[in-house]
């Protein structure tokens, strides 16, 4: 359903600071795939996500969604298909606006916005139901400003906002990395539940090796702008963390260096 074909992205091309963020990356995401992505710092994981979401445009190569090339389509138009949660809990919500206002904006993802009243009673009822699903009491604070929520609560809200309208693809870029272990666990559990229940096609960057193996049906490994390994479900289910790290060293010739790495 989503294909990345020979995608290459350079930063500061032609200058002494030239950086190859992604080189000749090919990825074929099938409907229902839940792919975890691991790799060293600067491997190009975020760049891969940004090429899909349209934050960045590839220098060469195509991004194809269901047969349509979208590499030159602006970010805001692609959001019709794509739901996203960022690493920074501050990034996914508007802090001076209320929970219900944030949900109203998420509800309109990819739809035209007119002059109709935003948070109607019908929508608020829907939001209340959705909020109670994540079970952290946000349904009773719908008119509170999001800036008052903790990082974990904001990330849970971001996750709900990104998913409750059923995006074709869900992109999660280290969305638990900025949280303490207990909150990270909560968000991981929620992610798993939501993805399974809604059968969302998901790409999730994580620095937690155990999680990368436990979650999802595919695992890809990146290093220095390349996708160096794509592990299918059959092999993934029997993989251990030390095997995974060994595999990385064997292919890349060096140890996996991730300053946020969690082995599990």
């Amino acid at each position, binding site marked *: 359903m989503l294909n990345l074909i020979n995608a290459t992205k350079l930063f500061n091309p032609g200058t002494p600071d030239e950086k190859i963020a992604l080189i000749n990356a090919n990825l074929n995401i099938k409907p229902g795939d839940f792919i975890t992505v691991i790799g060293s710092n600067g491997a190009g994981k975020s760049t891969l996500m940004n090429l899909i979401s349209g934050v960045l445009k590839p220098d060469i190569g195509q991004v194809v969604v269901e047969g349509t090339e979208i590499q030159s389509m602006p970010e*805001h138009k692609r959001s019709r298909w794509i739901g*996203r949660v960022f690493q920074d809990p501050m990034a*996914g919500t*508007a802090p001076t606006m209320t929970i219900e206002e944030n949900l109203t904006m998420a509800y309109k993802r990819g739809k035209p*916005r007119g002059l109709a*009243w935003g948070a109607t009673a019908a929508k608020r009822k829907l939001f209340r139901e959705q909020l109670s699903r994540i079970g952290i009491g946000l349904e009773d604070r719908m008119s509170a400003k999001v800036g008052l929520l903790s990082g974990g609560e904001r990330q849970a809200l971001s996750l709900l906002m990104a998913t409750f309208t059923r995006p074709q693809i869900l992109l999660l870029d280290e969305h638990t990395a900025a949280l303490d272990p207990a909150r990270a666990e909560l968000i991981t559990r929620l992610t798993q539940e939501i993805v399974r229940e809604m059968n969302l096609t998901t790409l999730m960057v994580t620095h937690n090796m155990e999680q990368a193996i436990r979650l999802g049906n595919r695992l890809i490994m990146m290093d220095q702008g390349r996708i160096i390994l794509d592990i299918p479900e059959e092999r993934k289910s029997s993989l251990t963390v030390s095997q995974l790290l060994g595999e990385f060293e064997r292919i890349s010739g060096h140890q996996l260096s991730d300053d946020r790495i969690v082995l599990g």
Partner: protein
Amino acid sequence: MIDSIYGAIALGLLYALMALGVYMTFRILNFPDLTVDGSFATGGGIAAVMITHGYHPALATLAAFAGGILAGMCTGLLHTKGKVNGLLAGILMMIALHSINLRIMGKPNVSIVNVDTLISPIVKPVGLFILVAGIGVLIVKLLLDVFLHTDTGLALRATGDNERMIRSFGANTDRTKILGVSLSNGLVAVSGALIAQQGGFADVTMGVGMIVIGLASVIIGEAIFGARSVFFATLAVVLGSIIYRIVVALALRVELLKASDLKLVTALIVIVALVVPYVRRVLKQRSVARKRSAELLSTAMPGKGGRS
């Protein structure tokens, strides 16, 4: 004394529309738009010229609104599509508008005395003026409140709050910015049109310093009345504009100040309002840090372990 305060309230109401425009850009869009100095005079100029040519003052005021929207649209396009820095885009438009305003007016000053204006039927008892102008401003304020709660209005607010987030939900933030700056300058131009009708003339220099006055009104209003929600924030802006005019009227009665000192005083109000919260925050942080350090030392607590 009382008369001058009533007069100040009346003026404050007319300027409140300008302050609402400044609130839209500075607070909602988080975009310091300096077009205001130019578009205020554009509004005054368009209204004055049309009224002297015999057009209905309501139509003239509506045309001023359109003129302001157009001016704001240019600034918005410059900033979003032309990638010109926001402050610079506003300054460029402000300068360009000075020439355009002279073209519109044909001369630096257009007088509209002894003709019917929107203001002339209600000008007599100042109480009536305040009532009618107050209702008018309230209607505009409420319309703005409603707009800011529509889907488009929410996207506009989110653009100023977290641009990356609202883009990930499919809003074209270039468009929301242009819309916001246009609407803001439309309000500013209407305010200019009303001030011209109230004063009996339009002058190319009538907008000089407007941006700072607008900002002062926003800041005074927020400081006194708070800004818990959009509804209260816009109310605070209107009241801030009135209080600003009352302060000015009182300051002028004190013989120490001359009318020409006003801009300095206004600038000082804004400077104080910007600097005080910052200083207060720094001082508070410092005292909290000291207290916590002292606590930690006295209990000789071992450092909390970092994350893995």
